[in-house]
């Protein structure tokens, strides 16, 4: 795949391209915890059950028109305009949602394999840099517990066990919580997840699943003054964090939020891709 030749190439590409507008309604979950916009309207993603690989055609994916499928060239995120309408301090993250499943229970201490293993990766297939999260679709119980996953790492070694993460209880049991997993020492990514085990019941089954994703970009500080919308125009080449992420073919893009409030506001904006 190609690279952008120079700054003029970026300008030319953005000029002849078009904006990808997007809007996602606010979500309510837990303060100071990562949360998922996946099921937010419009174009809300469905709660998954069977393991499935996600792609640009999966309902819920951002940048739908034109779809990011069957791309002949390389595309790089070079500019973004984003605002978040909220009364809280809020940051966003853009990720490629690679694989998901659901139907796991917060009330079981057995090794859960329902709808697992996760579907094989179709992007970033070596697993390097791929992360896993436990995504809550229906509220779990109010008793805090921990969960571990058994997974296959970036080297293809199965039977790896994650570090425990807190699940259940206040802040970690609500719908749309996105609990990111810490890996076993020395691992740098995940190819698949085979099972999930809770140390104790959260006291309510609810519904949660495993989501595999690849972070692409962070967008800090989109609202930092109460009751104000903070629109920003971002150039990922200059003024970004030095990352001009490639959006690879069939990417299933979604936003994650982090806020100091239980509500992450309406996220609205547009992204500009440069074709190389």
């Amino acid at each position, binding site marked *: *795949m*190609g*690279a*952008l*030749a*120079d*700054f*003029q*190439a*970026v300008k030319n590409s953005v000029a002849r391209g078009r904006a990808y507008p997007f809007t996602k309604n606010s979500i309510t979950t837990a*303060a*100071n*915890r*990562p949360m998922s916009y996946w099921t937010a309207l419009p174009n809300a993603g469905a709660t998954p059950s069977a393991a499935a690989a996600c792609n640009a055609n999966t309902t819920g994916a951002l940048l739908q028109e034109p779809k990011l499928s069957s791309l002949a060239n*390389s595309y*790089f995120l070079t500019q973004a305009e984003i605002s978040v309408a909220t009364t*809280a*301090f*809020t*940051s*966003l*993250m853009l990720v490629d949602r690679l694989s998901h499943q659901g139907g796991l229970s917060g009330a079981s201490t057995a090794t859960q394999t329902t709808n697992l293993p996760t579907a094989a990766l179709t992007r970033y297939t070596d697993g390097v*840099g791929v*992360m896993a999260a436990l995504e809550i679709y229906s509220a779990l119980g109010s008793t805090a517990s*921990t969960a571990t996953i058994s997974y296959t790492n970036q080297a293809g070694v199965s039977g790896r066990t994650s*570090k*425990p*993460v*807190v699940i259940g209880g206040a802040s970690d049991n609500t719908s749309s919580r996105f609990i*990111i*997993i*810490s*890996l*076993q*020492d*020395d*691992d*740098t*990514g995940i190819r698949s997840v085979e099972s999930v085990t809770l140390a104790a019941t959260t006291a309510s089954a609810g519904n949660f699943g495993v989501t595999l994703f690849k*972070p*692409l970009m*962070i*967008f*800090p*500080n989109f609202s*930092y003054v109460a009751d104000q919308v903070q629109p920003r125009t971002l150039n990922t*080449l*200059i*003024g*970004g*964090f*030095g*990352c*001009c*992420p*490639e959006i690879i073919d069939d990417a299933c893009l979604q936003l994650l939020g*982090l*806020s*100091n409030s239980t509500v992450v506001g309406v996220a609205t904006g547009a992204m500009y891709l440069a074709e*190389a």
Partner: protein
Amino acid sequence: MAAINDLSDLINRMTGGNSGTPENIFQWIDNRIDSAAATATVAGKWTSLWRYNKSRGGSGAVPSSPVAPDNTTRGGLLQTDAGGGRDKWLLGQGCIAASPGALLLYDRLLHDGGLVGNSTSAQTVGGTLTRNTGGEGNQIWVEIYTLIGTTATTITASYTNQAGTSGRTTKPVAIGGTGNREAERMLPLPLQDGDTGAQSVQSVTLAASTVTAGNFGVTILKPIGIAIISASGTGYWRDYVAGLPGLPKIDPGACLAAAILMNSTTAPQLMLAAGFAEC
């Protein structure tokens, strides 16, 4: 040393042209260490994120002897080295975080552990740097791995400065007692007047016992960048591209790690990001 010609050259390299080999690393850092919650932080004090659980590489180990960690040592970012005789450049770094503070990204040059908080003898450190061996800009920090005692005292280090002069002594720094005894606490030691770096640390000495041995060590580090997380739910971008030609060069084998000067008592969770390209 190679140089990036201009913005166009950089754009080409950061999108994969001209052997730029872009590397964008994300690392989720959880406020837990293995199976336990991390110790509550102390506002106004530095906290090491070395041992925190991570989505990339896992938790850093407690050193038991002086070791020079590198870019394969868990606890760090684990970036790859540049290939083909090229240099590696940090284009920017950022994070989004659940707790406010100031985040320091640094190259962890050497670390040691197994020192105790209840001895007033000179405790040997030693070890040899493998990066920035001249010592210019290197800093000496105390890093606590296991809770030491409740009695406040001070600590000094005997070191060799950037000019190769041994027997230099840092200014005393408070250690022990609330805020200066907890696991993951990092305490920077100001150098002797006139010094601008350190090549090695020979020993550290407590003025009095903190009463409990615990476990602490000495870390020699070279700061890469610092940035502010102004509030919970915010973060930052520390952009180096806009400051061309001031891109930080990342030494081969650099062990990039993070510490945070906390503004709250909530141990932080954060997504750390860093972007690199080669030239």
